[in-house]
């Protein structure tokens, strides 16, 4: 059964998400019917290999579920396109962001200058990523049509070389959408109401910590943009990959850094808050809340690292059974 599951997953990876579950279920059922019809079952590896070979390579089967010519990058090339695109876009985003962070760290500019430079970063980043994406699409569309890869003959194919299924790789649709929507909503809110960022003291309507909010904003925006790109990658792929898991850890680490800056800023402005008449207990509570934020993000990161290490240790690269 494990070989059938790996085959079905390999086909599913190349199918549009909307059809994937149904086709996977149908394919599994059809394979079991075929085995039963031949007087074999799913534990008879030789029979399974024979049936899978007859059905064809996963990329060929996935291709047959697509309407002819209705795609720019075909199912055979698409998984590679996804991997390469994710790696290139993440690397580019990381490089541009690191260059920006370095320039700010070397000489911290005024808040207005920082905001202006951040605007430049957002524009430059968007332009860079879209251009890179466009170039990658063109390259892969060419590769798909030119068929310059080495020919793979079905009779040479060994189903036992199919990649192992990694439990927990599937990302529920809702989670993937929320991974994009949540940071996008916060991004829009904090940037639309930039002038109102800070701590409102009612009923006097006094706005405290506005300068701290502006200081944190560029860093928060970088973290949110990174989160949005990650969310898009999750929606597009529907599965966790090694690259997206590492990127998620990177985004969480950056979030930790933002919380740390916020916490440091709050502690530095304690006198200002108390001077504005805020009760000491409330100031303590604010500091505690940021510390709790740091703790939660840190635990999430540790949990992510532990899961990654566990998966690496448990899931050995799959080799054909001789």
């Amino acid at each position, binding site marked *: 059964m494990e070989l059938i599951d790996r085959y079905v997953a390999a086909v599913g990876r190349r199918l549009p998400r909307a059809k994937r579950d149904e*086709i996977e*279920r*149908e*394919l599994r*059922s*059809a394979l*079991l*019917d*075929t085995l039963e*019809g031949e007087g074999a079952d799913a534990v008879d590896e030789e029979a399974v290999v024979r049936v899978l070979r*007859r*059905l*064809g390579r996963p990329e*060929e*089967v996935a291709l*047959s*579920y697509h*309407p002819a010519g209705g795609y720019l990058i075909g199912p055979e090339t698409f998984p590679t396109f996804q991997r390469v695109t994710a790696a290139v876009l993440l690397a580019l985003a990381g490089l541009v962001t690191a260059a920006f962070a370095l320039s700010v760290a070397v000489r911290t500019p005024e808040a207005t200058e920082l905001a202006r430079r951040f605007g430049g970063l957002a524009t430059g980043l968007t332009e860079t990523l879209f251009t890179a994406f466009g170039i990658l699409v063109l390259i892969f569309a060419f590769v798909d049509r030119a068929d310059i890869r080495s020919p793979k003959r079905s009779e040479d194919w060994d189903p036992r070389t199919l990649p192992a299924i990694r439990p927990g790789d599937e990302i529920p649709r809702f989670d993937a959408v929320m991974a994009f929507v949540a940071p996008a909503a916060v991004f829009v809110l904090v940037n639309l109401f930039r002038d109102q960022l800070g701590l409102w003291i009612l009923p006097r309507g006094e706005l405290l910590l506005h300068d701290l909010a502006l200081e944190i904003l560029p860093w928060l925006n970088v973290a949110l943009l990174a989160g949005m790109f990650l969310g898009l990658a999750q929606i597009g792929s529907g599965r966790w990959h090694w690259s997206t898991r590492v990127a998620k850890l990177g985004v969480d680490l950056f979030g930790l850094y933002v919380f740390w800056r916020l916490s440091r800023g709050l502690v530095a402005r304690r006198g200002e808050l108390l001077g504005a008449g805020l009760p000491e207990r409330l100031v303590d509570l604010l500091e505690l809340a940021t510390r709790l934020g740091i703790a939660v993000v840190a635990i999430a990161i540790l949990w992510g690292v532990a899961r990654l290490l566990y998966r690496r240790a448990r899931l050995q690269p799959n080799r054909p059974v001789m």
Partner: protein
Amino acid sequence: MVEPKDPIAAEERLAQELRRGAVVLATLAQVRPRQYGYSLVQRLTERGFEIEPGTLYPMLRRLEEQGLLESLWDVEGARPRKYYRLTDAGAETLARLSVHWRRLAGVMDRLLDEAERGESHGAD
């Protein structure tokens, strides 16, 4: 004149193209009362119409998307099975395609008969 590199393979490809043209009609004709993927492969093969499962399964989905077939998961057996059956639109399409096919088959018979007669006249 260009000779095909592998005449047997070229002939097989042409024969496949002929079958491809008839596969929808053959499927619509055999899906009654209701069939699941593997049973349909068996049914068609037993009647001399060989079809690869990798060709049939995606085609069943396409026919369903076109409204000619409808599917139902039967979960009462040992394991779930997806059954297909003709819709009313599918039955009407089958009836019309059958008329086209018989007309075409008649024309083809005449054409091939003429070709054979021409060959025998030429040989005399």
